[in-house]
C-alpha cells in the first residue's frame, strides 16, 4: 500500500495586472491637444505676443474656449454625442471670437485642438462638424471686416481650408478609428487572457482540493493502520518486499518501520522450514508462491503460519492473505493481516491435553467397575439373586452412561481441535440403520415406542466411516426414542435422491443435480420449538421441551452427529413441529451413477 502523503503548497494566485491605457487614450483623443493649444494661446495673448484689437471679444473668446476645454475634461468619460460634438463647437466659437478680437491669423492654429477632438470622435459626424466649424472661423473676417482693416480673406484660403481640414480630419479620424479598433482588440484579448487565467486558477484550485482530499484519505488510511496495535498489517510488493509495516507488526516482530520498509522481505519473517513444506505440499515453485498461492487463486486465504521475530522467537499467527491492487486495478502485491494465536493455540492444546487426561482418568476406574461387575454377574459358581442382579444391572447401566459421556466429551474435543479423522470405506446405510434399530430396540420397547425401518432391500452404499456413521445414527435414534411418548412411533428411512445446486432435494434425476443418500429419523414426539432449532447443534444445548419433560442427556449427541455428517461432506437438517414430532435427515453424497 503506497501511503506517500500527497501534499504540496497551495498555488500562488496570479495577481499580475495588465497595463490599462484606456485612460491615456481617452485623454489623447479628447481634450489634451485643445488644452495644450488654448493654454499656449492664452499665454501668448496675455504676454502680448499676439496683438489685441478688441479686448472684450478676445478675452470672451479665450474664456469660452477654456471653459469648453474644462468641460471636455469633465465629459471625457461620457458617451454623450452632444458633449463630444457640442464642446468642440463651443471651442470653435471661442476661437472665432479670439480671431475676431485679435485679427491675427496665428490664432487659426488654435483650430487644431477642437478639430482634433471632432476628428477623433467615434463617428464620422465629427468630420463635417470640424470642416463647417473651421469654415465658420475663416469667415469671421468677412463678418467683422472692419477689425481686419477691410482685408477680406483670400478666396483660395476659404476654398482650401475646409479641404485641408476635411482631409486632415478624415485622416485623423481613420487613423484614430484604426487605433480604437486595435485598442478594442487589445481589450478583448486582455479579457480573454484574464478569462483564461481565471480558468487556470480555478483548475489549479480544483487540483489543489483533489490533492488535499487524497492526502486526507491517505492520512485516514495511515491512521487506521497505525491504530492497529494488536494485529500485524504488512503490505508487500509482488516480490514480497515490505512496503507497509504497522505498529502491530512492530510489536509482534520486534522491528521498527524504518528498518523494514523497502529493506526486508515478508519471507524474512516466516519459518523457512514451514514454507518449504508448504511449497512441497502445494507444488508451489517458490516459498513466496506457497504463501500467496491460495489468496491469488481465490482472493483470500486465512491460516496459521509461524512468524519468526527479530529476536528469533516464533509466534503462531493466523494470517489473512489478500492480493493488493494499485489505483489502476493492476495487481501490485499482497497484504498480510496477522493475529497472534500463540497463546490461544497453547490454551487449545492444554484444553485438549486436559480433556484427554480426564477422559483417560475416568475411563480407567470405569474399566475396573465394569470389569468386576461382569465377573460378579457372570460368576456361574455363585449365582446372584434376582434382586442382587437388578441392583448390579442399575450400577452397570449407569457406569455405561458415564462411559458414553466420557467418550462423547473426548470426541467433541477432537472435533473442535480438528484432530477428528475418518477411516473411509464402503458403508451400507441400511445396515447402519438396522444396527441402530437393534441398539435402541430394548429401550424403545420399554418406553412403548414402535420403531419402523424402511430401507432398500439391496442397501445403499456410501463412502464413509462405519463406526462414526453408526454413532451418528445411534444418536438420532436414541434421541427420537427418548423424546417420543409411549404409543408413538419412530420411523427410520434410507433412500436415494438428487440434490440440486441450490441444495433442494428432488426425487428424480435432473441436470445439475448430484445423487445423494438420505437417512431420516422421524418421530411423533414432543417436537422442538422453532426458536430453539438454530441452537440445537450447539454443544451442551438442551431444548426447553427436553428440560421440561426431564429427558436425560447433556446436549452433546446432536453436536457430534452434525460433526460426523459434516466430516462426510453431508448435511444434517431437521423439520419439527412442537407436539407433532421431529424429523432429522442426514444428506450424504453418493458416488455419481455411472
Amino acid at each position, binding site marked *: 500500500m503506497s501511503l506517500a502523503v500527497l501534499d504540496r503548497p497551495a498555488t500562488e494566485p496570479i495577481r499580475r495586472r495588465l497595463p490599462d491605457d484606456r485612460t491615456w487614450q481617452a485623454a489623447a483623443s479628447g481634450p489634451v491637444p485643445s488644452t495644450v493649444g488654448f493654454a499656449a494661446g492664452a499665454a501668448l495673448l496675455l504676454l502680448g505676443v499676439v496683438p489685441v484689437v478688441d479686448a472684450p471679444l478676445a478675452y470672451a473668446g479665450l474664456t469660452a474656449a477654456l471653459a469648453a476645454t474644462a468641460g471636455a475634461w469633465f465629459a471625457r468619460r461620457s458617451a454623450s454625442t452632444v458633449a463630444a460634438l457640442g464642446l468642440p463647437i463651443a471651442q470653435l466659437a471661442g476661437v472665432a471670437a479670439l480671431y475676431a478680437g485679435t485679427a491675427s491669423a496665428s490664432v487659426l492654429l488654435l483650430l487644431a485642438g477642437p478639430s482634433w477632438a471632432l476628428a477623433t470622435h467615434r463617428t464620422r459626424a465629427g468630420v463635417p462638424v470640424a470642416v463647417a466649424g473651421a469654415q465658420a472661423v475663416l469667415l469671421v473676417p468677412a463678418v467683422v471686416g472692419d477689425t481686419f482693416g477691410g482685408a477680406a480673406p483670400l478666396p483660395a484660403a476659404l476654398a482650401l481650408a475646409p479641404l485641408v481640414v476635411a482631409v486632415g480630419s478624415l485622416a485623423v479620424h481613420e487613423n484614430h478609428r484604426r487605433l480604437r479598433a486595435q485598442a478594442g482588440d487589445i481589450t478583448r484579448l486582455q479579457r480573454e487572457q484574464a478569462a483564461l487565467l481565471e480558468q487556470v486558477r480555478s483548475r489549479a484550485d480544483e487540483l489543489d482540493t483533489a490533492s488535499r482530499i487524497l492526502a486526507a484519505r491517505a492520512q485516514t488510511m495511515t491512521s487506521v493502520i497505525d491504530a492497529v496495535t494488536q494485529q500485524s498489517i504488512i503490505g508487500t510488493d509482488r516480490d514480497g518486499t515490505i512496503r507497509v509495516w504497522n505498529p502491530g507488526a512492530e510489536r509482534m516482530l520486534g522491528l521498527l518501520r524504518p528498518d523494514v520498509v523497502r529493506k526486508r522481505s515478508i519471507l524474512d519473517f516466516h519459518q523457512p522450514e514451514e514454507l518449504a513444506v508448504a511449497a512441497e505440499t502445494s507444488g508451489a515453485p517458490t516459498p513466496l508462491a506457497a504463501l500467496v498461492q491460495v489468496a491469488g487463486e481465490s482472493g483470500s486465504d486465512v491460516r496459521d503460519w509461524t512468524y519468526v521475530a527479530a529476536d528469533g522467537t516464533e509466534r503462531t499467527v493466523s494470517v489473512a492473505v489478500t492480493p493488493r491492487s494499485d489505483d489502476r486495478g493492476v495487481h501490485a502485491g499482497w497484504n498480510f493481516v496477522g493475529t497472534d494465536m500463540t497463546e490461544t493455540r497453547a490454551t487449545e492444546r492444554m484444553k485438549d491435553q486436559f480433556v484427554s487426561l480426564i477422559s483417560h482418568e475416568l475411563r480407567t476406574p470405569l474399566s475396573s467397575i465394569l470389569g468386576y461387575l*461382569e465377573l460378579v454377574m*457372570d460368576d456361574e459358581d455363585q449365582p446372584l439373586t434376582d434382586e442382587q442382579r437388578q441392583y448390579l444391572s442399575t450400577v452397570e447401566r449407569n457406569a455405561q452412561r458415564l*462411559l458414553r459421556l466420557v467418550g462423547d466429551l473426548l470426541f467433541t474435543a477432537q472435533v473442535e481441535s480438528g484432530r477428528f479423522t475418518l477411516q473411509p470405506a464402503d458403508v451400507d446405510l441400511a445396515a447402519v440403520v438396522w444396527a441402530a434399530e437393534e441398539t435402541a430396540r430394548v429401550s424403545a420397547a420399554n418406553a412403548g415406542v414402535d420403531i419402523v425401518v424402511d430401507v432398500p432391500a439391496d442397501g445403499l452404499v456410501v463412502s464413509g466411516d462405519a463406526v462414526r456413521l453408526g454413532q451418528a445414527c445411534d444418536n438420532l435414534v436414541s434421541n427420537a426414542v427418548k423424546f417420543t411418548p409411549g404409543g408413538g412411533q419412530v420411523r427410520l428411512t434410507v433412500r436415494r435422491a438428487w440434490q440440486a445446486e441450490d441444495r433442494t432435494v428432488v426425487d428424480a434425476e435432473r441436470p445439475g443435480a448430484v445423487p445423494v443418500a438420505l437417512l431420516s429419523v422421524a418421530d411423533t414426539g414432543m417436537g422442538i420449538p422453532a426458536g430453539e432449532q438454530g441452537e440445537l447443534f450447539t454443544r451442551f444445548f438442551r431444548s426447553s421441551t427436553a428440560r421440561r419433560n426431564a429427558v436425560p442427556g447433556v446436549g452433546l449427541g446432536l453436536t457430534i452427529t452434525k460433526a460426523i455428517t459434516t466430516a462426510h461432506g453431508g448435511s444434517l437438517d431437521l423439520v419439527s413441529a412442537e407436539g407433532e414430532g421431529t424429523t432429522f435427515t442426514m444428506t450424504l453424497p453418493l458416488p455419481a451413477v455411472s
Partner: protein
Amino acid sequence: MDSPLPSPGAFRVLVADDEDDIRALVCLAVRKAGCDVIASVPDGALALAAARDELPDLAVLDVSMPGSTGLEVCAELRAHPGTAGIRILLLSAGASLDEVARGLSAGADAYLAKPFTVAGLVHQVKALTVGVPA
C-alpha cells in the same frame, strides 16, 4: 505384584498394567482363558525385564504405563530375536483408530480398547494362544 502359580503345560502369559485393579482383572481373565500368569508387573521396564527373563508365550501390555509405554516395550521385544516371537496384546484407554494403527504398526498382534469386557479379553487371549507350542 501377584505371585504366579505356574501349572505345567499351560500357556505362559506376562501381564503389565500400572493400574493394580485392572492388572488383577486382566490376570483373572488370563486364568479364565486357561493360561498361567507367569509375571504381573506395573511398568514398562519391569515388563521388558520379565519378558527377557521368562520368555512368555504372550504379553498383555497396557499402552500408557510409566517408564516405557506398552508401544515401546512392544517395539523393543520385536527388535530382539530372542523376544521377537512373543505374542503381544495391547490394552489402551484411547480407542481412536489412530492409536490402534500405531499399536499394530509397533508390532502388536492384537489390540483391545479399555474398557474391555472380561469375556472379550478371555476370547482374545484364547485366540492368541492357539497354535502356541505348549
